[in-house]
């Protein structure tokens, strides 16, 4: 038996063993765009490779560091782009400078929660999202339902996410736009005294960074969200 055979003794991971029409459509649209010179294959490859590296881990790390270091927290609040450098995200000089939408990498604002103030992020215009530090936006973030309702009834919408806030907590909805992207710096939860940065980073999930959840010891993943259409969206 060769060493290669030994490596394959474990059962194979399940794969989808058929080609869907959607997969074919995605390839066809992309290849036609390239054929027509709208962008190059090389550019597409480079951007795809970069996008695959993105996720919420750097933002979670930023929050954990800020919880442990008051001086770093100040930097986060005053200059999110500078603070991002400490978690390996260079909004100005790394690959995104030459790619993507410019607002992805020009102005990150870190919105600090307090025990009486809760921030939540939305993009009412489309679905602006701080991709370099948070990865791809979740489906619900893109929907007109979330975008229209969170600014009108934030307390109710947060409750639908399972986040029920006391009446004395002010909710501030911050609107991402072409110039600025936001993440939330939540309040460090009780029960995390003496925790390491790694332990703290684990409980700062994507939803906590958008502001629709708060960190809790033992919770390290986002719940699945049902996506509902808007019943009465703007001008429809």
């Amino acid at each position, binding site marked *: 038996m060769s060493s290669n055979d030994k490596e394959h003794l474990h059962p194979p991971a*399940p*794969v*989808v*063993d*058929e*080609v*869907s*029409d*959607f*997969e*074919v*459509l*995605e*390839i*066809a*649209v*992309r*290849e*036609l*765009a390239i054929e*027509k*010179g*709208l*962008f190059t294959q090389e*550019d*597409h490859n480079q*951007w*795809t490779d970069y*996008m*695959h590296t993105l996720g919420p881990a750097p933002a979670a790390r930023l929050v954990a560091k800020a919880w442990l270091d008051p001086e770093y927290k100040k930097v986060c609040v005053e200059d999110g782009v500078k603070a991002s450098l400490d978690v390996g995200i260079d*909004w*100005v000089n790394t690959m995104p*400078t*030459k*790619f*993507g*939408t*410019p607002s992805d*990498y*020009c102005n990150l604002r870190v919105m600090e929660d307090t025990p009486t103030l809760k921030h939540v992020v939305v993009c*009412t*215009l*489309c*679905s602006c999202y701080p991709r370099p530090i948070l990865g*791809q936006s979740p*489906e619900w973030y*893109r929907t*007109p339902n979330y975008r229209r309702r969170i*600014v*009108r009834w934030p307390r109710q919408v947060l409750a639908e996410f399972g986040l029920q806030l006391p009446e004395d907590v002010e909710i501030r*909805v911050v*609107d991402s*736009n*072409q110039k600025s992207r936001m993440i939330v710096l939540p309040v460090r939860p009780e029960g995390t005294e003496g925790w390491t940065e790694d332990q703290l980073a684990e409980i700062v999930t994507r939803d906590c960074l958008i502001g629709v959840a708060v960190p809790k010891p033992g919770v390290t993943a986002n719940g699945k969200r049902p*996506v509902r*259409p808007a019943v009465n*969206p*703007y*001008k*429809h």
Partner: protein
Amino acid sequence: MTDINPDFIELDKQMSDRELDSSPIELLEKIKQEGRVWDELSEEYGVDNPDPPWRISLEATCDGLAGGYWAPFNICLPEEERQPVMADDNKIDSNERRWEEDKLVDQHYADVPFPERQLLALAHTMIRRGMISEDELAKHMKAVDERLHMADGLDD
């Protein structure tokens, strides 16, 4: 409290004034009805990945079509270092694409899950803007499908 983003109202006015044809497209209707979405496939095959493998590629295509590769709006760069802007008819502004996606999803693709609906809306937008034709998309899909099935029936 901010209710409706003023930028959205302006965008909505601009886009409404353009009167884009949002009628259904036969090819995309067929895919909508017959195509198997990732939610269905991943459950059937026991795959954990919540997104289809082509999702990031689709995002990159959207960014490419926005002209982002040429950094036309890159205010981080000194003016002399910025790349040339693509001609308007060769790109789809991201906000316009998202506006059209919302509208098309509402009208035609509300029952299709994400990101399949994003893909259908993008193809719809490109066809209606004349960037590709329905016929050439159908032909290219056939060619891609044949290519992807070339190894079917061959021994490993």
